[in-house]
């Protein structure tokens, strides 16, 4: 089911949480609402769910105006950050809840409910836990039960608030993959909220970057990463080196092989991803020295110090594969030559 938000605004007292949000989500997408904490992403999710009311604007689900519909009538499934499992019910009763509270006329028979609940529990691979209570489960298990419970009412939209926020790093990795494949299987339009850009890139098919109650950019992970719309998105999505253009810096950037427009506007900044910087051992004096490096698994992060005349020294980060770095045989304090392959320009 497609989701269309038009002109959504929300204030909490004097604080403007959301400002004229326009958003269209086609059917079947898995969308990440990404932004720093306090950017309004959870508020937006709760407004789509009907847990919060919008001050103005409209919410259309599958072309139908649902702005004034109660949360119980919107046909959404909501997975809460802390799962919100019913602590006094077993896993089975938790999942069956949504079917059992249905109107008598549309409620499935108890046998049908039992069958479907077990099917859902099998879907999340936890049927063997159906007799347990939520407090007897691990975080990852609770998360999956919460998902099964939300799916039990056959929602046309699945909303997840920081679905991996409260989990261990290793469990989180597994669940991300699992959620992605589950979405592939069910193909229900899903939106999840996260502040972790890596998670958004890895799981989502569409990413919506929010900041201070506004949408900064919407697009596929590749679009967002390769063509950030502005400084905020560029900085928020992955690591970046920022160079504010002066004549000295421009000259230096040209020396590194980057094309620099001669008539650059004042305040122009160049953003360079660490992996777009290549380093080689310098044979003569260069303005860049190697300060330190850290192992990031397959990659090495190298901290360089750029020391241009009339400027305070500045750290520049580069990344390259382990083996390549080793073959360079660099030591701390060595002068290096830089080659910058690519930059994003903003004014």
């Amino acid at each position, binding site marked *: 089911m497609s989701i269309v938000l038009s002109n959504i605004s929300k204030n909490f007292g004097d604080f403007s949480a959301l400002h004229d949000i326009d958003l269209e989500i086609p059917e079947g997408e898995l969308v990440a609402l990404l932004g720093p904490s306090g950017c309004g992403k959870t508020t937006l999710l709760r407004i789509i*769910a*009907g*847990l919060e009311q919008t001050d103005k604007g409209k919410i259309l689900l599958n072309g139908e105006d649902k702005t004034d519909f*109660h*949360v*119980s*009538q919107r046909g*959404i*499934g*909501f997975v*809460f950050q*802390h799962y*919100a*499992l*019913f*602590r*006094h019910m077993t896993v089975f009763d938790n999942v069956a*809840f*949504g079917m059992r*509270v*249905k109107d008598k006329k549309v409620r499935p028979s108890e046998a049908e409910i039992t069958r479907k609940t077990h099917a859902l529990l099998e879907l999340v691979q936890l049927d063997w836990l159906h007799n347990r*209570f939520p*407090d*007897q489960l691990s975080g990852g298990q609770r998360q999956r039960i919460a998902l099964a*419970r*939300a799916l*039990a*009412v056959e929602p046309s939209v699945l909303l997840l608030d920081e679905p991996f926020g409260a989990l261990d790093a290793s469990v989180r990795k597994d669940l991300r993959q699992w959620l992605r494949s589950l979405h592939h299987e069910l193909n229900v339009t899903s939106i999840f909220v996260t502040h972790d850009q890596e998670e958004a890139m890895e799981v989502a098919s569409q990413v919506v970057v929010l900041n201070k109650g506004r949408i900064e950019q919407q697009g596929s992970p590749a679009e967002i990463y390769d063509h950030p719309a502005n400084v905020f998105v560029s900085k928020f999505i992955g690591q970046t080196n920022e160079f504010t253009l002066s004549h000295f810096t421009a000259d230096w950037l040209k020396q590194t092989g980057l094309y620099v427009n001669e008539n650059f506007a004042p305040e122009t900044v160049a953003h360079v991803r660490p992996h777009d910087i290549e380093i080689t051992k310098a044979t003569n004096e260069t303005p860049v020295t190697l300060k330190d490096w850290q192992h990031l698994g397959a990659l090495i992060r190298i901290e360089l110090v750029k020391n241009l005349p009339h400027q305070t020294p500045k750290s520049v980060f580069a990344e390259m594969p382990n083996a390549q770095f080793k073959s360079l045989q660099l030591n701390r304090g060595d002068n290096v030559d830089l080659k910058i392959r690519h930059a994003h320009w903003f004014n």
Partner: protein
Amino acid sequence: MSAVISRTVHQNTLGDANWVRQSLIFTALSFLILFLCVPLVLVIFQAFAKGFDAYASALTQKDMLAAMRLTLFTALITVPLNTVFGVAAAWAITRFEFRGKSLLITLIDLPFSVSPVISGLIFVLVFGTQGWMGEWLLEHDIKIIFAVPGIVLATIFITFPFVARQLIPLMQEMGSEEEEASLSLGASGWQMFFKITLPNIKWALLYGVLLCNARAMGEFGAVSVVSGHIRSLTNTLPLHVEVSYNEYDSVSAFAGASVLAALAVVTLILKTFLEWKQKNDRATASL
């Protein structure tokens, strides 16, 4: 694990002065025995001072039975009303943001901070023959002061806070996520309340109801002011005890007192059980 360690460390640092601990325990225990246990034993002793038959006949006296009936009647009206009120107030305070919320919280506590006698006097000022509504009530032949309605009203006022006070901290701690989850799954407001909220607050609610009931049955000050002490008509059990005692009918007075004392003991046992139950529930929930 770290909690266990820090606790033992704590005990050691505090346990250094052994005599402090022992003298504190001794003082607390002697107070308990002197001011709680001895009076309780005396009440029972006095009640049976003239033998079991005298005790039994005192308990089945017409005035005594009428006092017990009135006490039960009052509690029967008061407790359900204040249960509903307490849940509603706790719900409003913990689930909604509104102007005057802190005022409402303060008002709920008012009966605790005002002397019961003053509470009683307020009702006399409002509903008494010389009071604000006195004339109107007289014209319509409605009796509140020195009658049963006054007793019920005063008791309701006094026992207002018990249920709400138990529920507010618990519901604050629980948050509303589970309730929101039930709504998102299609539950109606009533389904949410009876299937999600109530099971989670039931022990605290029962605890509040129990305290409310104990106070409703035992209230003396406020009721004494509005009752008028009319035998068999407006005497509750605590008032009957006082009246009998003043008339040197000590067996009757202490027999009544023994019933109230028994009520207190039962309340204490139930209270301990509910406290244990509540703690148990929360302990498993936080695992």
